[in-house]
């Protein structure tokens, strides 16, 4: 069971690393990892209507799309923060995208990737303190820009 802290009003799992650009989380480990959306990624997506993933076995480079998300008739790519091979996709969230909103750090995971360059983890934000500081600053920035309501 991962430790979930409340940071600036949002739940944040502290046992994993975060991609600041896309608001994805990457589970711990240098081999097979899970990816998901963090609470801010979920919040800014809105009500998720559709999710689709590329095929298992697909080789991804960091920055490539591993799938797509649709909310409010707005389709956007899900962009991988790490390089590797897709080894599993979460059929449960494809069938029920609301699962991502209900449990973003657990059952709402998106894909599993076998990392091809574990060194890329250094570009992610990890460690409970650093994650809390970064996430709080992101919420503050989103509020300042009007992306989130005050």
């Amino acid at each position, binding site marked *: 069971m991962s430790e979930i802290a409340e940071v600036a009003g949002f739940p944040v799992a502290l046992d994993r690393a975060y991609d600041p650009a896309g608001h994805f989380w990457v589970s711990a480990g240098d081999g097979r990892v899970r990816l998901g959306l963090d609470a801010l990624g979920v919040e800014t997506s*809105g*009500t*998720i209507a559709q999710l689709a993933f590329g095929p298992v076995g697909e080789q991804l480079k960091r920055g490539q799309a591993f799938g797509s998300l649709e*909310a409010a*008739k*707005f*389709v956007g790519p899900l962009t991988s923060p790490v390089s590797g091979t897709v080894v599993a996709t979460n059929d449960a969230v494809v069938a*029920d995208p609301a699962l991502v909103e209900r449990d973003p750090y657990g059952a709402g995971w998106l894909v599993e990737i076998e990392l091809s360059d574990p060194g890329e983890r250094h570009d992610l934000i990890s460690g409970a303190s650093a994650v809390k500081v970064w996430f709080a600053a992101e919420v503050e920035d*989103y509020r300042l820009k*009007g992306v989130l309501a005050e």
Partner: protein
Amino acid sequence: MPELRVVDCGRVSALRSQTLWHALAHGVAAGAPPTLSFMRPSQPYVGVGYHRRLDEVDLAACAAAGLPVFRRMVGGGVVYLDEHQQFFQIILPVGAVSRSREQALRTLLAPAVAAFRAVGVPAELDDDGEIVVGEAKICGHGAAQIDDAVVVVGNLIERFDHTAAAAVLAVPEDVRAEVVRLMERFVSPTPVDAAAFKAAAVDAYAEALGLEPVRGAMSAAERGRLVELDHRFRSPEWLEGPARPEPQCRQVKVRAGVYVAWIELEGSRAMATVVRGRIERMEMSDPGLDGALTAALSRARLVG
């Protein structure tokens, strides 16, 4: 003042009424100026939202009617498009758009609302994010991030053939009849002068975005991308789309918050009309399906 490139493609083929603006989006992602584009299809056709199952389209009916079918990269469902619709697209670099999808959409649809109002249509952007007059949607819209550009598309519907629009859906006939009934109530054309609407849209988007409108054309790179997109959009693989699960409860969205949903069990069918979270009407061929339909509706996500 930075430039708003205005590209008016005029009347174009059905295929190009999709691929042109996709090519412009790739261009904006690659550094072309923010772009407002216009086009009008020269023939009727059917558009399929990026994530929708192709079996939502009655392909046999489309073939019999001579309607091409193209999958677009923006969201939404199966739509009937024709020469009585003036398409517009606003395309911006992703960094210029709010990270909140809902906020981005509202911001980029607001100038379209202003354009409708400028030509005498009392349009509003409602709480569901639809451009409406009263309770009727008057503009079909969708959005996507394509590379590093965001595109929001919409249309001025001068005339709308509700029966033709429902005829392209792969639905049982009683569902089709209900869809037509709801479309007549919730989808309305606005027969205004398209040239005036386009001029008003240019003014409204330029003012809202703080950009100077400049008539422009596609770049050579965008034309190259256009040819690639033509090829992709004609391919069976693209038309098939991403793999989608079989839904437990089928649904047709007429406008945001208005759905016809139905389930079929062992040869029986139950259908519900849902308007803003309330079941307005239910029909079932087997009364025993009441509980099954209610349960399916409670599980179904009536969004998208």
